């Protein structure tokens, strides 16, 4: 009896994956759960375990090939005795007994689907009529470079024809041949080095562009006084490091304040699908933390159910997740499902950053460096004086399609208020 192993769906938004490496060859015996190949999706690189016992009779895709979820990958001959018919990934049913559910967020709205009306010019530019598609492909025209003059900027047949008759915008191979030899060589050289884009880089690049094309990015920032936190931090720093093996940074404080703010402003913790007219307010908070992979790329680690952590817990989780990501030992859960993201630019000494939203989130918070700065403080008697205090900027890039500036600033101010006034020492004592 032969069995087919298919491309798994590793994450809700994943539609395809690339076969990195076969770990088996035709004739190999494999047991259920033995790793059989490595695949790469836009979420994760991972090994695929065999769902069955059997002998490999056919490899149906080549290394390097990208195939859709559900595509046949490999054929196994053999018995089905050990296979369990329940899906491997199925999680134990959640307890629905209300008393057992720790409801930490009474205000969090349930998943809501709001119908939103489409604005006419949204994405209109990307809708190409049949004749425009045909002419563009026949004449090798880069459609991105075409200025549409139709309704709402639509690219009309005439727009393409103008380009055809002018000769611009074409990806012409003849042109290269006409160039002087050195020029050509130079081009070849640059081409060679630019061809080596890593898969990770490519994924980042694609995601960044898609995000820019999808959301209406606006950046807003606010100044925060970290003095209180600094005092608590200074007091517990040494002991914390000793007990936990990693330093207590500002990030856990900001993360915790952010989680509270997300609970207060659920619209910031949402996804927005204009095309299908759906706005989904998430009822769980999965906090994404951007992790720099030693300048070799960037991944967003996910703290699933981040609202269940206290300060120490979140600090540990951040530290662990970052390490998993840097070591390349993470699983799918560690990198998927974030509902809001923090980019910790302060750790690289930033002053102000305008990050790109991590889709399908609707906002991203950037922490900036905390430094001693002179500030005007008011004494109890009302007199002003200049004091040296730890301050830093928090900036947020948000999607203006989904909400407006007021929400963004209320959200930021909520975080600021928390950071400045919460009784943080209680969390650490």
């Amino acid at each position: 009896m032969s069995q087919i192993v298919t491309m798994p769906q590793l994450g809700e938004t994943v539609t395809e994956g690339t076969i990195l490496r076969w770990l088996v060859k035709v004739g190999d015996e494999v047991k259920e759960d033995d790793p059989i190949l490595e695949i790469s999706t836009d979420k994760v690189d991972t090994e695929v375990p065999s769902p069955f016992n059997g002998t490999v009779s056919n490899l149906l895709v080549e290394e390097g090939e990208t195939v859709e979820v559900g595509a046949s990958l490999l054929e196994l001959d053999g018995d089905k005795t050990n296979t369990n018919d329940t899906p491997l990934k199925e999680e134990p049913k959640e307890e629905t007994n209300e008393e057992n559910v720790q409801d930490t967020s009474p205000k969090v709205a349930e998943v809501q689907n709001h119908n939103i009306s489409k604005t006419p010019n949204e994405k209109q530019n990307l809708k190409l009529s049949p004749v425009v598609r045909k002419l563009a492909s026949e004449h090798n025209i880069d459609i991105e470079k075409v200025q549409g003059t139709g309704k709402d900027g639509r690219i009309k047949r005439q727009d393409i024809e103008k380009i055809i008759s002018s000769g611009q915008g074409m990806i012409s191979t003849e042109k290269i041949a006409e160039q002087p030899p050195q020029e050509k060589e130079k081009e070849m050289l640059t081409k060679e080095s630019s061809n080596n884009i890593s898969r990770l880089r490519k994924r980042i690049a694609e995601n960044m562009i898609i995000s820019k094309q999808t959301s209406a990015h606006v950046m807003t920032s606010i100044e925060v006084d970290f003095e209180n936190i600094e005092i608590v931090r200074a007091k517990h720093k040494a002991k914390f490091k000793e007990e936990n093996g990693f330093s207590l940074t500002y990030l856990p404080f900001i993360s915790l304040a952010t989680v509270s703010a997300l609970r207060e402003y659920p619209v910031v913790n949402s996804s927005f699908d204009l095309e299908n007219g759906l706005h989904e307010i998430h009822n769980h908070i999965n906090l994404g933390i951007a992790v720099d992979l030693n300048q070799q790329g960037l991944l967003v680690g996910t703290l699933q159910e981040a609202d269940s952590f206290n300060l120490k817990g979140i600090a540990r989780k951040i530290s662990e997740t970052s390490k998993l990501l840097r070591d390349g030992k993470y699983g799918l859960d560690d990198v998927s499902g974030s509902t809001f993201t923090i980019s910790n630019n302060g750790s690289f000494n930033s002053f102000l950053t305008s990050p790109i939203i991590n889709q399908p989130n609707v906002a991203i918070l950037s922490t900036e460096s905390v430094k001693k700065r002179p500030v005007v403080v008011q004494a109890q008697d009302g007199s002003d004086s200049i004091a040296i205090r730890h301050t830093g900027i928090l900036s947020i890039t948000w999607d203006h399609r989904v909400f407006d500036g007021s929400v963004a600033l209320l959200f930021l101010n909520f975080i600021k208020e928390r950071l400045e006034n919460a009784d943080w020492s209680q969390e650490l004592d």
Partner: protein
Amino acid sequence: MQIEKITRKGYSASLSKDQLWEIYKSMKTQRLLEDRLLKMYKGGQLSGAVYPGIGQEASMAGIAAGMNEKDIFGGTHRDLGVQIKKGVTLKEIALNFFGKHDGPSKGRDGNSHFGVVDKGTLMVVSPLPDSAPVAVGWALASQQSGSGVVAVANCGEGATATGTWHESINMAGVLNLPVVFTVQNNQFAYSSPNETEFGTPNVADRAAGYGIPAKIIDGNDIYEVIDVMHEACESAREGNGPSLIELVTFRHYGHAGHDPAEYVNEEVRDFWMKRDPIARFEDSLVEEGLFSTEQFVSLAEDLEAEIREALEWAKTQDDPDPINEVEDMFADRTTPTISNDESDTKTMNYIEAITNGLDELMENDENVFMMGEDIGVFEGAFKATKGLFNKYGPFRVIDTSISEGGFTGAAVGAALAGKKPIVELQFYDFVYPALDQITTEAAKYYWKAGKSVPMVVRGPTGAGTRSGPFHSISPESLLAHHPGIRVVAPSNPYDAKGLLVAAVNDPNPVMYLEHKKLYRKPDLKMEVPLGLYEVEIGKGKVVRQGTDITLVTWSGMVPVANEAAEVLSKENISVEVIDIRTIVPLDEEIILSSVEKTSNLCILQEDVPFSSIASEISSVVAEKGFWNLDNPILKVTPPNTHIPFAPVLEDAFIPSVEKVVKALKELQ
């Protein structure tokens, strides 16, 4: 069993021994053939149906025996016996039952639903009694040409309840046509007895209502059937007009092979079995000393073998090839296109061009004639036949009764008999009662019986004259949906005459749609050539060149399209207007090549939008011109409602220049 005797008295008394043997043989053939077919049907050897006329053999053979060889018979599903006596062979019948390629209906219809026109039997169709008006039309042609042919319109007593039968017999009576209406009253219409079909005691009682003579006869007495039939046919042939014969008879079996006829009570059955037509005929032949029982038995053996052989042979014959289905929808034109140097012209409006065309067509060919309500002395509701009655007289410009189904069906019969009839519908809204004849008979004749039907149905269409919901239809999609008919809709005087001439010369049924708003539209006057000329059916025309948008339209909407194009040209939008002129066959080429140029398509029509010509054109372009499109295809049409009377409502209904302009501006 005591059998009632029959004796020869009238015409039958003059028949020779051989003639009587032929008649007997035909009756026996029918009985044995239908008996075998029933057995095969019940044994699962035959698909379709068998409608046995066993028990009615004397009526069947007698009707045919009373007719002349060139007389035409229009009958129903029950009439295999008549067809056999008219000369249709066992092999032809067998081929039809097996749906074979060489059968009379080429596999397109089965069992007894066929005719062999060359042997004098009209195509049998299911809707009852649809060949009656066709027979009437054949008689009309005979009357016009003096050919002496008599038409027989036969059906069962149940079918006489239809409007079709009424219109046929009424028309024949009014026009004094050489038709004999025979009704085989076999006591049942499927399961229904006479009482449920008509209110008079007899079918024949109704002849008074048509002003024609009638007789009720014993349909199981072969001699009486022959005598009365012969007399009626000769009387009609002599110009004495139609008559009605009710042949009282009985079918031994159910309506069809599947029907056990439990609704027939035993007394009735016994009564009729004593009057079995074949037994009575045999008795009399023996009594007269003409033939012996041994001869009957031996004939039966021979016929049995012949029948089996024909059926076995037919099974092995070629099946039809689905490939030919589309090709066989229309007859090819064999006459050359009429040429005209068009040097001699006269300024005409739209209706003058039509009248002029009708006149020249009738003058040119005496087979062309017209039928319609009030078209003769009164010269038509819109005066389209002005001067024609005076010029061509009542036999070629025929005022008909209000019988759209009747005279449209008659046109089919006349066309089959070699005429070129032009039917005028007073308003095209009244095409509905004629649709049965158009789609059942006209549209299917060539496809099913291989006989072309050159006829034209013309009349005013369209709204805009405050004529309300029943005088304003745009019937193009209604008509075009039926395969086998052509539909043309001219928009100006030149095309009106040219398309009319082409329509009359086309060997197929052509629906010629005139737009009443155009009839006397003053700015539509133009130079129209004198003498016959043709505008090719199936060819559209670019009536205004343009580069940005293709606007496809026809008939009354062409002037609207032109005006809209003019308005838009002032805003630098260049519209190409195409008048398709013919709806079926559609000139796809002219539309597709224009869309290739403009990449934008709008279809403008006065007909309502759902399931319409606009939808069809849109589908054609989406299928075949998709890659040339730069915008979704637009339709400008009335709403999907009926056509209202109140001026404000009607004006809102009909697409206006403003609406077209607004719609086309969307295509940017």
